[in-house]
């Protein structure tokens, strides 16, 4: 038992959310390459510590690809391609730390735990409900667009008609989902004004504090240099 505990360290959802804030400050203010590489390296290490070896390898490959693209491939390619893609690479690099933390949160925590964490930060309940619906709806949009694409291919719809033929079913299905989801949520007492309780008890342990301390140190370094 103790062995499994150590190999699968978990971060508290509150730590994860705070890390996200710190990563944003770093992305916004950082100018030095070594801090950027350090942040990415530490996040990879954190991902491994949390038992997500496969996603750590995947992120590692993405990082190496992006830097190789920006340093070796793009300088050697034609100018138009180089300009457009180096901006993509640049955006992606800036977003990477946030995406890595986000990915870690999604794969190690349930949405329920994140909601409890947001509640403990005193985020208004109304904002929590809407934003969790928004987050949950992204994969649904992807699925929906794939279905609509299949249907369009069957009926040979092309050109400008495609935009309308995608948008309208998407809107109608969104409206229907909103109706159905509301009915389900209201039945389960979403409109109950009483304070919500939860089975989940959040506990910050020593690992969380270490992660937060290292994260804050990096933020300070990024802000100074």
């Amino acid at each position: 038992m103790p062995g499994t505990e150590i190999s699968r360290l978990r971060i508290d959802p509150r730590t994860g959310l705070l890390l996200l804030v710190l990563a944003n400050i770093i992305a916004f203010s950082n100018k030095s390459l070594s801090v950027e590489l350090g942040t990415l390296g530490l996040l990879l290490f954190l991902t491994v510590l949390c038992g997500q070896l496969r996603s750590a390898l995947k992120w590692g490959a993405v990082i190496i690809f992006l830097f190789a693209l920006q340093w070796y491939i793009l300088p050697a390619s034609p100018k138009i391609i180089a300009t457009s893609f180096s901006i993509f690479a640049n955006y992606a690099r800036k977003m990477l730390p946030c995406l890595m933390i986000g990915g870690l949160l999604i794969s190690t925590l349930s949405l329920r735990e994140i909601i409890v964490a947001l509640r403990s930060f005193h985020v208004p309940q109304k904002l929590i409900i809407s934003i969790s619906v928004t987050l949950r709806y992204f994969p649904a949009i992807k699925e929906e667009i794939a279905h609509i694409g299949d249907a369009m291919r069957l009926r040979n719809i092309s050109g400008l008609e495609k935009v309308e033929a995608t948008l309208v079913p998407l809107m109608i299905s969104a409206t229907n989902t909103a109706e159905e989801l509301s009915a389900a949520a209201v039945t389960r007492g979403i409109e109950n004004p009483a304070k919500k309780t939860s089975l989940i008890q959040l506990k910050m342990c020593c690992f969380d504090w270490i992660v937060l301390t290292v994260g804050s140190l990096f933020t300070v370094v990024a802000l100074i240099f």
Partner: protein
Amino acid sequence: MSQSTNGKMLKGRDLITVGIFSAIYFVINFIFMLMSGFHPMIWILMPALIALFTGVPFMLMCAKVQKPGAVILMGLITGLLYFVTGQFTVVILATFAVGCILGEIARAVTKYNSYIGNTVAFAMFSIGMTGSPLPIWIMRESFLAQITQQGMPADYVATLEAVSSPAMLIVMVVAPLVTAVIGAFIAKGMFKKHFTKAGIV
């Protein structure tokens, strides 16, 4: 429209509706955000392009949720999502806040169910996105230096500097207003052609 008459507070149903349409709004928004990498002009016209294509989700959301706070909530969600993806700046925060508050006022004055009121609200909301390219003008030197240092290619920055004349600033702010009206007009057409017939508004 029975749901809009019971009470003036946002209820569970409204929150879910706003959440879902915010997701669609954000996806369209984000596509243009990524496309702005191709050419600086796309970045400068990004708020306008977004306004043109997001009219339908915004107007449908307005039709479904005729209560105060819906526009602000949508703006908050968009802002938070930008925050998570690391694309957030203080300027966007300010323009979004101003846009959302003006939008709410426009809807409050017109009692939430007028087409014109919602169109004005949408135009104001679309102005919120101008916070993304706005630093090019208001913090010109330091901003251009910053994005160069962060690895933006020199060509892009040079073109950006060349096209961002003071006249362009006016275009950048006025264009979303115009396209928002067009976007709302398209939405109206779609409402008539599809949504009213399908019984969803």
